[in-house]
C-alpha cells in the first residue's frame, strides 16, 4: 500500500510498491497526493483475483521481479510540482449553459446543470458562517488538497444549495476530513456511498423532509446537500471515475436522512447524534458509508417477539460479506443502520423497549451459521486471507470470544461485535410499517459526527432568507 511506502521513503528507506496493472494511474495519482510523485512501483500484470497460480507465477517472474529490482536500485526522476489555478481564481466567463458545459467537460461536475459559482453567490453563502473563507477545515486525501471554507461555499452553490445550508456543509467537510471517517477509501472498488444523517433543530429550520419519502429526492435541503457531498468528493478530495474512483458500480449521491425527532422524543429514544456521543443541544451531522440497502416491507406483529426476527434477519442478510469488518480486517467496525418508521419504533417502545433494548434484541437474533460467516470471508471472497476459521481468528485476537463458543459449524454467530454497533434511526412515513436496512462498509467510511456551528446572527439571517 502506498501510504506505507511513503512512510518508508520518509524514513530514508527505499521502497517499491506492488501494483496491479489496472491500478497504475491511480497509484501514480495517489503517490502525488502523498507528495512523492516519483514513488516507484512494480507492476503485477492483469488482476490477481482471476489468475491461476501458474499464471500469477509466470507474470511475477516475467514482469514484477524486474520492476522490484528497478524500483529499489534505480533513482526515479526528480519530482516536479503540479501547476494549477489558485482556489477562488476566476476560471471562466460565460452564460449559464456554457458554465455548466465548461465545468462538466473539465471534470468538475456530475453531469447535471450546476448553479454558476460566482463571487456574489459565494459571498451569500459566506454570510452564514463566521469562519474566515480561507480557513482550512482539513486536508483531504487522496489529492491532499486543502479544504477551505470558500471551496465549501463554491461547491455548495454549484450543487443547488441555499446559502443558509452553509453551516451544514461546513460541518460535513469537517467530518469528511476527520481521519476517523477514512475518506481516502471513498474510491474503493465496492463503490459504497455515504449517508448523511442530520439531527437537531436545524431539521425544521431548513425544511429537511423527515416524513414519507425521507430517502427520496424532491426536497431541496435533503437533495442538494447530498449532491454537494459528491461534488466535494470529486473536486476537493479528488475522486474521479476511471482514475482515483474505482467503484465497480458505485452509487449516486444519497439524499440526506433527517430523523423524526418529535417521534423520538415521544417515545424517549435517543437520536443518532446522541448515540454517537454528541450531547449538546446543537444540531449535528453524522456521516457513514454504505454499500447498499433494502426495504423490510410490511413488518407484521404487535409485539417485539413478533417483529424482531424479521428485522434481525434483514440486518444479518445485509451485513453479508461485510462481516469482514466485524472480524478479520477490522474488529467490531461493522455498523449496520436500521431505519424504523415511527409507527414501528412506537410499537417497540410501547412494549417497554428503549433503543438500547432493541439493539440487544437484534444482536441476539441477527445471527448466521458459523460456516456461512467463514464462507463470506474466506471462500466466496478472499477478503480475510488464508481461509481462517472463526476459531483461528479468535485465537489470533481478530474476533471476539463469542465466535468460538464451540466448533459446531452450524452454531449461530453474531454479524456485529456488540449490540450497540447496530445503529438505529427513526424516519420515514410515520404510518407505514416499513423499515430500511443499510449495509455498512466498516472502516472504509466509519460513522463520524460533527456539530453544526451557527453564526451569531443565525435567526436574523434565517428570517431574511425566508423572506426571499
Amino acid at each position, binding site marked *: 500500500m502506498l501510504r506505507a511506502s511513503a512512510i518508508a521513503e520518509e524514513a530514508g528507506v527505499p*521502497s517499491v510498491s506492488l501494483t496491479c496493472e489496472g491500478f497504475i494511474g491511480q497509484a501514480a495519482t495517489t503517490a502525488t497526493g502523498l507528495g512523492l510523485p516519483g514513488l516507484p512501483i512494480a507492476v503485477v500484470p492483469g488482476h490477481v483475483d482471476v489468475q491461476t497460480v501458474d499464471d500469477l507465477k509466470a507474470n511475477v517472474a516475467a514482469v514484477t521481479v524486474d520492476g522490484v529490482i528497478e524500483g529499489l536500485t534505480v533513482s526515479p526522476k526528480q519530482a516536479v510540482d503540479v501547476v494549477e489555478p489558485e482556489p477562488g481564481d476566476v476560471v471562466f466567463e460565460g452564460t449559464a449553459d456554457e458554465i455548466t458545459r465548461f465545468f462538466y467537460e473539465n471534470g468538475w461536475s456530475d453531469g447535471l446543470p450546476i448553479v454558476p459559482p460566482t463571487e456574489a453567490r459565494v459571498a451569500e453563502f459566506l454570510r452564514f458562517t463566521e469562519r474566515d473563507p480561507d480557513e482550512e477545515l482539513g486536508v483531504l486525501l487522496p489529492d491532499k488538497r486543502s479544504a477551505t471554507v470558500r471551496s465549501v461555499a463554491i461547491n455548495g452553490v454549484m450543487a443547488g444549495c441555499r446559502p443558509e445550508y452553509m453551516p451544514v456543509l461546513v460541518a460535513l467537510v469537517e467530518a469528511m476530513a476527520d481521519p476517523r471517517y477514512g475518506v481516502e477509501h471513498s474510491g474503493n472498488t465496492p463503490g459504497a456511498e455515504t449517508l448523511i444523517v442530520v439531527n437537531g433543530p436545524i431539521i425544521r429550520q431548513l425544511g429537511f423532509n423527515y416524513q414519507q419519502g425521507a430517502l427520496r429526492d424532491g426536497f431541496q435541503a435533503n437533495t442538494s446537500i447530498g449532491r454537494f457531498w459528491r461534488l466535494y468528493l470529486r473536486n476537493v478530495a479528488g475522486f474521479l471515475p476511471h482514475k482515483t474512483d474505482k467503484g465497480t458500480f458505485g452509487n449516486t449521491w444519497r439524499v440526506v436522512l433527517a430523523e423524526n425527532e418529535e417521534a423520538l422524543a415521544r417515545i424517549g429514544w435517543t437520536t443518532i447524534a446522541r448515540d454517537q456521543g454528541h450531547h449538546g443541544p446543537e444540531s449535528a451531522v453524522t456521516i457513514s458509508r454504505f454499500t447498499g440497502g433494502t426495504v423490510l416491507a410490511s413488518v407484521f406483529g404487535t409485539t417485539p417477539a413478533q417483529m424482531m426476527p424479521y428485522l434481525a434477519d434483514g440486518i444479518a442478510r445485509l451485513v453479508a460479506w461485510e462481516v469482514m469488518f466485524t472480524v478479520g480486517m477490522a474488529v467490531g467496525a461493522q455498523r449496520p443502520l436500521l431505519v424504523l418508521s415511527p409507527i414501528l419504533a412506537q410499537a417497540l417502545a410501547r412494549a417497554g423497549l428503549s433503543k438500547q433494548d432493541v439493539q440487544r434484541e437484534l444482536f441476539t437474533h441477527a445471527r448466521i451459521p458459523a460456516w456461512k460467516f467463514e464462507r463470506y470471508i474466506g471462500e466466496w471472497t478472499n477478503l480475510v486471507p488464508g481461509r481462517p476459521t472463526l476459531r483461528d481468528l479468535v485465537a489470533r485476537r481478530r474476533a471476539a470470544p463469542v465466535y468460538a463458543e464451540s466448533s459446531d459449524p452450524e452454531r449461530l454467530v453474531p454479524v456485529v461485535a456488540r449490540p450497540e454497533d447496530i445503529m438505529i434511526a427513526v424516519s420515514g412515513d410515520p404510518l407505514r410499517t416499513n423499515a430500511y436496512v443499510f449495509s455498512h462498509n466498516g472502516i472504509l467510511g466509519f460513522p463520524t459526527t460533527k456539530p453544526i456551528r451557527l453564526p451569531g446572527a443565525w435567526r436574523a439571517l434565517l428570517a431574511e432568507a425566508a423572506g426571499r
Partner: protein
Amino acid sequence: MLERVLWPRGRRTVAARPVAPRLSTLAGKTIGQLWDDLFRGDEIFPMLEAALAERFPGVRFVGFRTFGSTHGAEEHEVLRRLPERMREHGVDAIISGMAC
C-alpha cells in the same frame, strides 16, 4: 448574460519531495515486506523472495507478519510504528503490496 465563475477545487498542500536514495545492489541487503492482507500478497511475496534470492547473494527478508497489516483497523498504529520496526530489523529496503 455572462457570469464569471470560480475554480471549485482546493490547493494541493504537499510540495513534491524526492524519494529516499536507492540501493546500488540488493546483494547482502535486508528487505522488509509490507502487506495489506489483500490480493494474494501471501502468494506473491514468496515468489519474489525466491527470484531475488537467486539473483542476489546474501539478500534476506523480514516477513509482512512482523510489521502488521497496512490496511485495516490497526493501520494507523502499524504505520506509526513502521519506522521504529524497520530500524529494529535493520531493514534496507521495502517491498509494499498490494495496490490493486
